[in-house]
């Protein structure tokens, strides 16, 4: 069945394949174009370096007028990621624009990794460590990087 949402998701997929931004990859499930699996590689020169973080993006027929729901499938330790993997990112909420595509979402999340916003914490412990004990913060992040390889 072809709907504007599905057509748009196919275009997103083609764009992602033909012009992939560095450090991210993603593809719809073979049997359901509305659910995508994606991987973000931890940006270099950040505590997340070498991590391979898996995400699941779920779209509905309101896309691209409404954002998809995005959550990390890998364990994360980050000020703006909740314990259940959901994340707090403005462009996935009130700053959403229908011109964002999957590539734009994934690159935004990638930049959120090394540029957290500790003022609106989804994980209070990560936020306070990020502010007050950077060494311990890095150690905890490295743990998740290692667990992301499993």
């Amino acid at each position, binding site marked *: 069945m072809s709907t*504007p949402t599905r057509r*748009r998701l196919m275009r997103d997929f083609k764009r992602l394949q033909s012009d992939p931004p560095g450090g991210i990859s993603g593809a719809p499930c073979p049997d359901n174009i509305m659910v995508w699996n994606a991987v973000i590689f931890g940006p270099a020169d950040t505590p997340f370096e070498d991590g391979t973080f898996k995400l699941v993006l779920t779209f509905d027929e309101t896309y*691209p*007028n*409404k954002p998809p729901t995005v959550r990390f499938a890998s364990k994360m330790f980050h000020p703006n990621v909740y314990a259940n993997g959901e994340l707090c990112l403005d462009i996935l909420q009130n*700053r959403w*624009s*229908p*011109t964002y595509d999957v590539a*734009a979402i994934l690159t935004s999340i990638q930049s959120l990794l090394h540029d957290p916003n500790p003022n609106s914490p989804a994980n209070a412990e990560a936020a306070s460590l990020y502010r007050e004990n950077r060494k311990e913060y890095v150690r905890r992040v490295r743990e998740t990087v290692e667990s992301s390889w499993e």
Partner: protein
Amino acid sequence: MEDLGSDSGVQSQPDKGKGTADDEDGATQDYGDTYDFDDDDEFFGMDDSGFEPVVSSRDQRKPWEVEYHVHDAHGLHDKQEAMINRLVPVLSVSKDITTILLRNSQWKEESLVERYLSDPDKTIRDAGMFPNAPAPELKTGNEDFTCEICYCDGPEEVYLGLGCGHAFCTDCYVTYLTGKVLEGMSWRIRCPGAKCKALVGEQAARLLLANEPKILERYEDNLTRSFVNDLDSFTWCPAPNCEYGIECHVPKSAWATIVPTVHCRCGKAFCFGCNMDDHMPAPCFLVEKWLQKCKDDSETSNWLKANTKECTKCKATIEKNGGCNHMTCRKCAHEFCWVCMGPWTEHQQAYYQCNRYNEDSSKNARDSISKSRALLERYLHYYSRFSNHERSAKLARRLLTTTETNMEQMQRNSSMSWIEVQFLSAAVDMLSACRATLKWSYVLAYYMESDNQKLIFENNQSDLEMATETLNELVENPVHERTIEEAKRLIIDKTQYVKTRWETLLRDTAQGLQENRWKFQD
């Protein structure tokens, strides 16, 4: 023996301010509509047909009345248009931009003009518009066009772009607008482009939604809604399903000395300041204080008064739930007699009987209690009268139904016509208005410091109260041992008298508040 904190017990909020919800008192109802902008023109337009405009007493505002206008949806729309059209030549930019500038500055014309004249371009850009941008139009036939939302492209696509340069096909634009409009948005809808601050503007929105009449109607609705919400001098009538907007220019700073009661065309009388039901003669700030106090105290205090006494030494509230009269306070270990409240040491062996009521020490103990209870007594004095009038106001509304039966009966039993028995419903309307005023007058009295000015106020209050009760009795039982003609004459007389008392009280309090005649305490 139990020690009770003063906050224990049942708390409940007295049914607040329902007294006047449906009041349509004859004295003010006719005045409700006459201050409408729209109606004014028609009113004076009557000159042509040979009628002189009658300057009757209803056009002279009473001291307790404020000027206001009731607008329907059309009136509100015209009001916006008038404000916009007035400013277009001043700013000499397009109407679309003027509209956005006005909305963006909460319709504060003066500060907008000032800002605009100092830097026109910046003012327009800050508001999310583009100076010198051509009027929005649907375009087609562009080889290079690609919609950034659905990626459709080619010369056959119809699209629209704003001054920001982002262009989208009409299908995507309409879907986007529809979503935002249904969320309740109107002029604040921005260009769909990522992080773009450009506003879509009313002209572009109307162009795009031309084929979606339902959504367009909702969009226009949202515009009016934001107009009334953005302006301090406008408010919506709070009655359910009422769609009238009220315009009133009594500034917020004056609400302490003026009660801005307005009467909507739907019949609702409410305060423009706090949107509560009409609470004349008490000003908003006292009403708020009172309702908060009632919420905190009323039921608890009632229960405490009925069931507890205070320890004469530490004032702990004590409920006696069994045992003899020899009390030992759990808090301070003071021993006293429950009956005379004197110290137990003076009771010797008289365990089960206290006949020492007049002894000095027990008298002193009772005095100290009575002081702290006096405040409570005072509050309850006013509260019981306040709630009594509130209840009576509800009964008065029920009375209206029985009155209608009475009126029918009178028409059958006498030669009176329908018009001739209207005096009865007029009396009930007057009663309702008085009940509401009396109710809130007790709030005003509670906070007034005692002095001669308060005495004058209380005299007015009691005059009105007595007159109201007499009228109430008459209306409830109009033909008791009287002929119908006698009853009619009596009720008409009494209604007129009550009205005079009512107006006297309102005039006096309105003037008193203006003159700061009373000192208010906490």
